[in-house]
């Protein structure tokens, strides 16, 4: 059993609805996508989904000819190789993608779903809804969270940051929408690193006068352990952060300095192997982790095997045009199938169609940080969002 080759396909996908946070309030409905295929001499292929796989060409020689079932050792080999330049950017994207595809292969070769290979008892993972909803009108906001609540999801995360009055109104809308799933739905907010630590304390405390927040996500910069700790100490909500970090090494200062209460973990954290390392470190520290959203919720396979996982983010914006899979959401949980590996097949025809006829839409990913971040709140301009704001511009 040997790794013989790879290929990757990139494409652009148009979402069913736009997504946004306070850095780009008007949102976007186009996302880049990629699929990495790792090929073996037995004809079995492993896949990885996401974006930023171009760096694989520089690293593939490290795994060529190796046994894909030895994925953890291969991860270490690649991680050691990139140590001088760092596990960041293109190197991190390639390491992550290769690791995920190798885990997919390992499970497929064992003819079992990946959650089983990773040691989970079953393929069920608690979910929470996340609208990436800054660009949704109040009606659309309600409709999204109600649709999620109808599937049993009893927690929601609202994008906030530029208008606290409106944020509080919309939190009420989200709570109302989720109330059919729970009398006390879990409410989270996400300001995507727009605030300074002290702004975060002021704004979150105001919100907490009216709402019981489970966590506030990225209330300060991702690396600012002193600022994050300050927020954690001065508000009632837990501080969640980490989605934009790369590896367990990046989490170390946050954990060692007690700057984080919930760790947001993701596929980009050096793949499944790297993400699991972070979760295990958090577990030893008694901290919960929450898996970030991804296409077809494929990272739920790992989440199912983590002892300290509390809920996976479900965005459901329609990113699966070229994917075939059987996972679904029921009773507030992501239910993974028993199909081997990630349980995801690539619809090559649909993929070719997307490549031949790239969709058009609005926005570009990734997008820039909004003016004023960490210093002052730049008020929303008229028409920037489709909901009533309290801000006024001269």
């Amino acid at each position, binding site marked *: 059993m040997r790794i013989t080759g790879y290929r990757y396909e990139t494409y652009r996908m148009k979402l069913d609805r736009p997504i946004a946070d306070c850095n780009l309030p008007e949102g976007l409905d186009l996302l880049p996508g990629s699929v990495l295929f790792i090929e073996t001499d037995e004809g079995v292929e492993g896949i990885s989904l996401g974006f930023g796989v171009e760096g694989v060409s520089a690293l593939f020689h490290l795994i060529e000819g*190796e*046994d894909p*079932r*030895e*994925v*953890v*050792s*291969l991860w*270490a080999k690649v*991680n050691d190789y990139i140590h001088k330049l760092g596990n960041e950017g293109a190197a991190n994207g390639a390491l992550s993608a290769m690791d995920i595809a190798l885990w997919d292969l*390992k499970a497929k070769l*064992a003819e*079992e779903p990946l959650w*089983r*290979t*990773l*040691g*989970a*008892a*079953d393929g069920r993972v608690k979910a929470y809804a996340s609208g990436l909803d800054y660009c949704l009108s109040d009606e659309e906001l309600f409709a999204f969270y109600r649709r999620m609540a109808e599937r049993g999801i009893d927690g929601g995360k609202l994008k906030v940051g530029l208008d606290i009055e409106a944020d509080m109104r919309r939190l009420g809308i989200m709570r109302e929408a989720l109330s059919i799933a729970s009398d006390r739905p879990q409410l989270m907010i996400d300001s995507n690193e727009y605030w300074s630590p002290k702004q975060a304390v002021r704004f979150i405390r105001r919100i907490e006068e009216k709402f019981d927040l489970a966590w506030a996500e990225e209330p300060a910069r991702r690396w600012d352990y002193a600022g994050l700790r300050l927020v954690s100490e001065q508000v009632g909500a837990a501080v969640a952060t980490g989605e934009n970090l790369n590896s*367990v*090494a990046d*989490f*170390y200062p946050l*954990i*060692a300095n007690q700057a984080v209460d919930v760790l947001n973990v993701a596929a980009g954290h050096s793949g499944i*192997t790297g993400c*699991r*390392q*972070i979760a*295990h*470190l958090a*577990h*030893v*520290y*008694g901290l919960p982790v929450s898996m970030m959203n991804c296409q077809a919720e494929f990272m739920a396979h790992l989440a199912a*095997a983590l*002892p300290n996982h509390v809920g996976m983010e479900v965005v459901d914006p329609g990113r699966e045009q070229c994917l075939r899979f059987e996972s679904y959401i029921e009773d507030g949980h992501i239910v993974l199938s028993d199909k081997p590996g990630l349980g995801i097949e690539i619809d090559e025809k649909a993929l070719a169609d997307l490549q031949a006829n790239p969709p058009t839409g609005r926005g570009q990913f990734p997008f820039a940080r909004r003016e004023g971040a960490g210093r002052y709140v730049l008020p929303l301009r008229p028409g920037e969002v489709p909901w009533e704001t309290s801000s006024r511009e001269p």
Partner: protein
Amino acid sequence: MKITGAAAAGSMAFPGQAGLWCRLELTCDEGLAGESLCPVRVRDQALTLANDRLVDRDPRAASALWDRLAGNAGDDSAAAARASLDLACWDLAAKLRGEPLWKTLGGSRPRAMLHAAMPGVPESDDAVRRWLGNVAEVTAFRAGCLALSGMPATDARRLALIRDTLEKQVKPVDLAVDAGRSWPDERVRQLREIERSIDLSWVKVAVGPGDELACRRLVDSIRAAVCVGGELTSERGLMPWLHQRAANVIELDIHRLGITGALRAADAAFGFELPVVLAPAPGHVQVHLAPVLPSFMSAGIVDPAAENTGVFGDLRFVCGRGVMGDRPGAGLVFDRISPAAAKERSA
């Protein structure tokens, strides 16, 4: 695929391991058995735990099963019982996949760095020489660990003996000591005295909850790295040592932490950039983990020439490294009768 039952039989002794050990077996509905070694003193506890918590469960759900057994971890006996069951689950999971345990864990073939760990405090310098003779005959160890006698001059002389013997085959070698339990203050003075003539790489200390700050003082007092963790009965117990920076090397004992707990603790140690050593284990099963621990440093081997222990692992010694074979599962071969046969015979 489900675990159908548990049984235990036999009585074996291993160099450097306290008490007697038995063979623990988990059977499954596919006709395979997961095997591990279990201290005889916790045999009944392990069988009760298996029947209560593991029967009808899929052995491949090793991570979840470890947590399912967690309620019983805490004291040393419960941890040993839990760890034995975890080892048997992993053995079974690997056998079901028809592959060696190291591959199931995601590793490439272990070619692990080893350290020769002399069992107990030697009675004399001659005892050290005899042990070194056995060790050096098997392979060229790059590190040796001596249990301290409490007499610095004697310990320094014995360490020099170890260094000089091992360096006939490979150079440089790392020297480590096992400072045992009663290490504060007096031990610190002794260690500093030894360090005047011997370059110690690491000092293993036996610790318990509440020792973190004293251990931190030791970290600040000697040149050598301080190694703790061999007494951990749960991966969560590692947290205060990380948080207080009270250790420089983490030792993991799979007969307390199981494979699952050891994997988790090793990931946490990696997050703190701390190297991990694996405590010696009967049958050298611990070496399976070496390639999947991201900051693995070395695995302890008590007596590589030991024979007639009743169990044979799948490890070869090559140029100072431990190279695992391809036997499915943990690769243990017992030269005793099976638990089922033993039960039948006794009936």
